[in-house]
C-alpha cells in the first residue's frame, strides 16, 4: 500500500485520529485526505500532468505533507528541495528535471550528494518507497500508537522517509523545524501519546545529551525508540544514551537516498558496537565487494540519476548499488562500517563535496586559491574549514567569505572555520592534495 492509500484507509477507519502535528497546528486523517484531494485538484488545474515533475520547497510544516502527497495523488513526481535553497539553485534544478522524461513508475526525485559527492537527482520508484516503508515497519516496529518526531529537513531521506512508515502504520508525525528550540522538542512529550520515537543524527544526540540530559532521562518512559544514522556515532555516545534510555530501542541504521533503508542495529544491547549497522532489513540484500565496498540490492534501491547515465552506470550495475561505504561482515552476520571512499565530508549527516564549496569560495574576487577540509569542533563534531590564499594586497574577514559562499550554496555547505594561508598544498600534477590535509 502506498503512503496515500494508507492515509485514505485510515481516513475511513479512524477519521479523527491525528495524522500530523506541527506547533499549534494539527490535522486528522480525514482532514489530511480532503486536503490532499483538494491540493491535487489545484495542481492538475495549474497544468501538472501525470508522470511529470513538480519542484517545490520542503517547508517544515503540514503544508509540505499535503503537497507531497497531493503530487503523488495526481500521479506526478515530487521533487522536494531544501527550503533554504538559493533561488538560482532552485530554478536550475527545476529546469533540469522539467527537461527530462521519466519512467511511469517514478514518484520521487530527491537531490543528494550521497555516493558520488556531487548533487544529483535520485529517481525513486513507487516500489522503492513501499519497500523502504515495509523495511521500517518490520524492523523498527512502527505502530498506530506512535508519535514520530521529525526535526530534520523534509527533503532529506532520513526525515522524509519517516513520514511513510509512521502514517502507513496509522501513527502520527510531529514536524519540528530543527532542534534549536529545545523546549519545543521536549514539549512534544506533553502531548497525549504513549509512545514517542524520533530520528536524530549523532551530532543532535550529543547536543541533547550535553544540554538536556536530565530532561531526556525524565521522558525516558515515553521514548519507544530513537534511530540514528547518516554519520558515525561513538561508543561513548551510545553508552550515555543507553544509560538515559535503558528500556528504549536505540537503532543505528544504514540508509541512503540511492539505497533506501537497508540495515539496522539496536545498540542498546550492552555491547555498543561502534560502526555496527546490524543485519539487512526485510527487503534488502547487502554484500561486500572484493574491494570491501558495501553492495546493496533489493527493491528499495534507486532507478538511477536524473539525466546522468554515466554517473548512474558507475554505481548501479546489474541491479546492485555499489556504495562508497567500506565494511565487513562478522562471524554473527552483523555488518560493520569501517570508512568511506572518496572526498565527501560528512557534516551532521549531510554529505558535502568539498569541491562545490571551493568553487563557491574561489569565485570571491579576493581569494586566489583555497581548499575545503574537515575540522573538529568541540561540540558539533566534524565541521568544514576553508583554508584560503588571499589575493595580493587583500585582507578578508571570515564573515565576508562566509556570506559570499552562502549566496551560492545551501547553508549547511558554508564552512564554520576560516584560515588565511600562504599556499594550498597541491600534488605534482596540480590537483588539490586532500590526503595531505587528512593527515
Amino acid at each position, binding site marked *: 500500500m502506498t503512503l496515500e492509500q494508507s492515509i485514505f484507509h485510515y481516513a475511513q477507519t479512524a477519521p479523527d485520529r491525528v495524522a500530523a502535528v506541527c506547533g499549534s497546528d494539527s490535522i486528522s486523517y480525514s482532514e489530511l485526505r480532503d486536503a490532499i484531494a483538494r491540493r491535487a485538484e489545484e495542481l492538475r488545474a495549474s497544468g501538472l500532468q501525470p508522470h511529470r515533475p513538480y519542484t517545490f520547497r520542503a517547508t517544515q510544516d503540514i503544508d509540505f505533507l499535503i503537497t507531497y502527497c497531493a503530487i503523488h495523488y495526481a500521479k506526478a513526481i515530487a521533487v522536494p528541495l531544501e527550503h533554504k535553497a538559493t533561488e538560482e539553485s532552485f530554478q536550475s534544478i527545476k529546469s533540469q528535471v522539467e527537461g527530462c522524461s521519466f519512467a511511469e513508475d517514478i514518484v520521487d526525485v530527491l537531490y543528494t550528494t550521497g555516493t558520488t559527492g556531487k548533487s544529483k537527482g535520485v529517481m525513486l520508484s513507487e516500489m522503492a518507497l513501499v519497500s523502504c516503508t515495509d523495511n521500517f515497519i518490520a524492523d523498527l516496529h512502527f505502530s498506530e500508537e506512535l508519535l514520530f518526531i521529525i526535526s530534520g529537513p523534509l527533503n532529506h531521506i532520513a526525515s522524509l522517509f519517516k513520514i511513510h512508515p509512521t502514517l502507513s502504520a496509522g501513527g502520527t508525525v510531529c514536524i519540528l523545524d*530543527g*532542534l*534549536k*528550540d*529545545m*523546549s519545543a522538542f*521536549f514539549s512534544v512529550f506533553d502531548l497525549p501519546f504513549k509512545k514517542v520515537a524520533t530520528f536524530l543524527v549523532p*551530532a*543532535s544526540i550529543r*547536543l*541533547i545529551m*550535553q*544540554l*538536556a540530559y536530565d*530532561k531526556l532521562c525524565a521522558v525516558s518512559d515515553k521514548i519507544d525508540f530513537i534511530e540514528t544514522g547518516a554519520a558515525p556515532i561513538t561508543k561513548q555516545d551510545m553508552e550515555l544514551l543507553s544509560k538515559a534510555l535503558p528500556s528504549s530501542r536505540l537503532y543505528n541504521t544504514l540508509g541512503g537516498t540511492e539505497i533506501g533503508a537497508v540495515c539496522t542495529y539496536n545498540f542498546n544491547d550492552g555491547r555498543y558496537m561502534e560502526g555496527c549497522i546490524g543485519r539487512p532489513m526485510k527487503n534488502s540484500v547487502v554484500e561486500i565487494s572484493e574491494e570491501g565496498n558495501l553492495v546493496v540490492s533489493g527493491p528499495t534501491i534507486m532507478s538511477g540519476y536524473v539525466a546522468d547515465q554515466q554517473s548512474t552506470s558507475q554505481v548501479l550495475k546489474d541491479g546492485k548499488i555499489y556504495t562508497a561505504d567500506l565494511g565487513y561482515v562478522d562471524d554473527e552476520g552483523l555488518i560493520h562500517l569501517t570508512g568511506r571512499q572518496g572526498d565527501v565530508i560528512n557534516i*551532521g549527516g549531510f554529505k558535502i563535496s568539498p569541491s562545490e564549496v571551493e568553487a563557491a569560495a574561489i569565485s570571491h574576487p579576493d581569494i586566489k586559491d583555497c581548499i575545503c577540509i574537515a575540522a573538529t*569542533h*568541540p*561540540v*558539533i563534531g566534524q565541521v568544514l574549514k576553508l583554508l584560503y590564499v588571499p589575493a595580493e594586497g587583500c585582507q578578508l*574577514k*571570515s*564573515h565576508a*567569505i*562566509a*556570506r559570499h*559562499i*552562502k549566496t551560492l550554496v545551501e*547553508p*549547511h555547505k*558554508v*564552512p*564554520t572555520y*576560516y584560515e588565511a594561508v600562504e599556499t594550498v598544498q597541491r600534488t605534482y600534477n596540480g590537483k588539490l592534495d586532500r590526503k595531505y590535509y587528512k593527515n
Partner: protein
Amino acid sequence: MRERIFEILSESLPAVDFEADFLFGELDSMGIVTIFVVLAKEYNISFDAMDATPKNFKSIDSIVKMVEQKIANL
C-alpha cells in the same frame, strides 16, 4: 558587552548575520550550541536546553540580555 558579544559570535559563526531582524531564523541547532559554548567560556556562565528559545535568540540584544541575567544570577 554588546560589542564584545557581537565580535566573538561573528567570529565563531561567520555565516550568520547577527544584525538580522529575526536572528533565531538565521540559526540552526549547531549555531545555538556554538553560541552557548562561546558565551559560557567568555563569561563563565552556563546554559541549559530551555535557554534555547526564540525569545532569547530574537536578536543580538536578546542574547546580551540573557547573558546579563545569567551573570546577575551567579
